[in-house]
């Protein structure tokens, strides 16, 4: 029996009029959304458009539609051949050095628990310094006249080659320097991944009689696969974008295009020779390349990724 109500001065209840949804959240979101629209999404589309035009950044000169001519121009240039080859070298060589090598190191650090504090702090050190600083420091260490490497080699009776002017060696030099920069951080990423593994799993395996190697192979490695994948992707992106800095400071792409990569190539096209069309097309090519790698990863590796319950 519902209580019968005596109306307090109004007739039948009115349905609510006016706004159903609050305005406030949109105000809070506005800066981010506007910025993303202007500086991320619109440029994304514009770049694709630009890859089909020819222009030299001169406001007095109009853009000319050239269709796919930019792409064919790039693919046919020797710069592209070198850049693409080098990019592949950077990426493929980075995998064992930056993605796989940190894993056993991380496992060891992880077993040290709190005793590994010092190691962890030192491993993080190169991350704090800019790549500029790192490049410059190694520029000195590798200096053919008085650098430390040269001097130590001399002391040992050998000779230290001029790694940065040798077309074949230069790229490996830069590769090793970038490994130096990043290996500590990647190791710590893996340590973080290991730290998030539920101890119960480890203990259960131990009770089942697992040896150290079994533990690694059947528990740690599978549960590290998400982290591994993450490190893999960031390493690939790193190998394309971040190596720009040492390339620019140490060799400027040379000698004889020995260290250039796709990104540096784009930089040269767009901002050195001001060939906007080539630059934009190059960017799209890089993106397609990354997309291809992602797809390959999804097809082959994603199936093996294991997540904890």
């Amino acid at each position, binding site marked *: *029996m*519902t*209580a019968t*109500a005596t109306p*307090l001065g*109004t007739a039948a*209840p009115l349905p609510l009029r*006016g706004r159903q949804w609050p305005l406030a959240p949109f105000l809070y979101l506005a800066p981010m959304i506007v910025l993303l629209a202007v500086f991320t999404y619109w440029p994304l589309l514009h770049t694709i458009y630009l890859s089909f035009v020819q222009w030299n950044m001169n406001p007095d000169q109009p853009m000319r539609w050239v269709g796919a001519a930019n792409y064919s121009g790039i693919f046919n240039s020797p710069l592209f051949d070198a850049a693409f080859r080098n990019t592949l070298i950077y990426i493929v060589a980075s995998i064992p050095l930056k993605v796989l090598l940190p894993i056993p190191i991380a496992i060891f650090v992880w077993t040290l628990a709190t005793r590994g504090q010092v190691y962890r702090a030192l491993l993080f050190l190169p991350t704090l310094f800019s790549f500029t600083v790192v490049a410059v420091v190694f520029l000195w260490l590798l200096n053919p006249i008085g650098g430390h490497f040269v001097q130590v080699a001399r002391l040992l009776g050998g000779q230290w080659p001029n790694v940065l002017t040798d077309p074949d060696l230069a790229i490996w030099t830069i590769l090793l320097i970038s490994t130096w920069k990043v290996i500590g951080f990647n190791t710590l990423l893996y340590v973080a991944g290991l730290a998030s593994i539920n101890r119960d799993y480890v203990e259960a395996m131990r009770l089942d009689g697992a040896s150290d190697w079994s533990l690694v192979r059947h528990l740690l490695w599978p549960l590290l696969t998400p982290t591994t994948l993450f490190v893999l992707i960031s390493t690939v992106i790193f190998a394309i974008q971040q190596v720009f800095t040492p390339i620019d400071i140490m060799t400027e792409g040379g000698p004889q295009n020995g260290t250039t990569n796709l990104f540096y190539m784009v930089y040269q096209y767009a901002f050195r020779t001001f060939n906007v069309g080539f630059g934009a097309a190059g960017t799209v090519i890089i993106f397609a390349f990354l997309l291809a790698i992602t797809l390959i990863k999804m097809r082959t590796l994603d199936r093996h990724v294991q997540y904890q319950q």
Partner: protein
Amino acid sequence: MASISFRGLAKHFGGVVAVKDFTLDVPDGELLVLVGPSGCGKTTTLRMLAGLEAPTAGEIWLGEREIARLPARERNIAMVFQNYALYPHMSVAENVGFALRLAGVKRDEVARRVLKAAEMMGIGGLLERRPRELSGGQRQRVAVCRAIVRDPQAFLFDEPLSNLDAKLRMSARAEIRRLQQRLGVTTVYVTHDQVEAMTLADRMVVMHDGCIQQVGRPLDIYARPANTFVAGFIGSPPLNLLPVSLSATLGLPQQLLTMGSEVATIGVRPESISLRASDLRRPLHLTAQLELVEALGAESLLHLRLGEWPLLARVPGTVSVSAGDTLALAMDGSALCFFGNDGQRIDDSDLQLSLAQTHNASVVRPATGN
């Protein structure tokens, strides 16, 4: 202090109707309890009253103001949350005084009022602590303290005792009752625990599927449930609901089936059944199989079976029976409820009268009458 009125309050979430046409008057100073199972709409109704949920339709009156469209902070209502919602980065004193400071009350005035409220709640010594340093019971007190210090026109409680252990719940329950009576503030209290509802409420609203099933004083609802849902929900243990086909087994006269409106279900209170040997006054006789005895000391719960139907009896003290026995029982006819095909209770005084007359033993009419 103010009275509250709900007029046709409703809430739709997309296609789901959470609250249907809630209309009710709550006089100033009353402790009203909304009780019902999960999903019945009681919390949604409370949140609409608080201003945390916008109604789809209807009006809410607090005193002279219609507040259904007002933002929560303009309503002058205080709320105690299920998980207390104490600000973790503030001390107890800051938690309690937060609303006052936001309203611009001067520091010393805030401190004075906080101290007074804290002493009323017995937490005066905890004012400098952080919430994480407090026990569950203490946090609950702080949450209540935060509400009372504001001197609002109404208190809202959203299942504030559900996170406390059983013992604490009982003492906290009594405290809230005493507090409300002392302060005299109109209070709306939501719980799924019908024992809490029965003990706290001046009046109780039983809800189900977004609708009000029954409104009334707890004992009235207990004695005369409006329908089978309320009958099965209220009471611990709840009413036994049996089909009318068992009326003969229960010792009831055949006329029941033909008298007045159609009876479909019979409600039997567990405490109205006793062992025949111990209560000669109870006129209705029946026998049932005993399946299980729960001996609680002060009383015993007998899980019986009447043919294929379960029956629960509540008898005082300890009884010497064992599972498997066939028991001779006696039942009090005046405490029976009858429900029609639609589940609604049949309020038929003729029925009751004839029940009384058909038996030889005199039936003592309960004081509440029909």
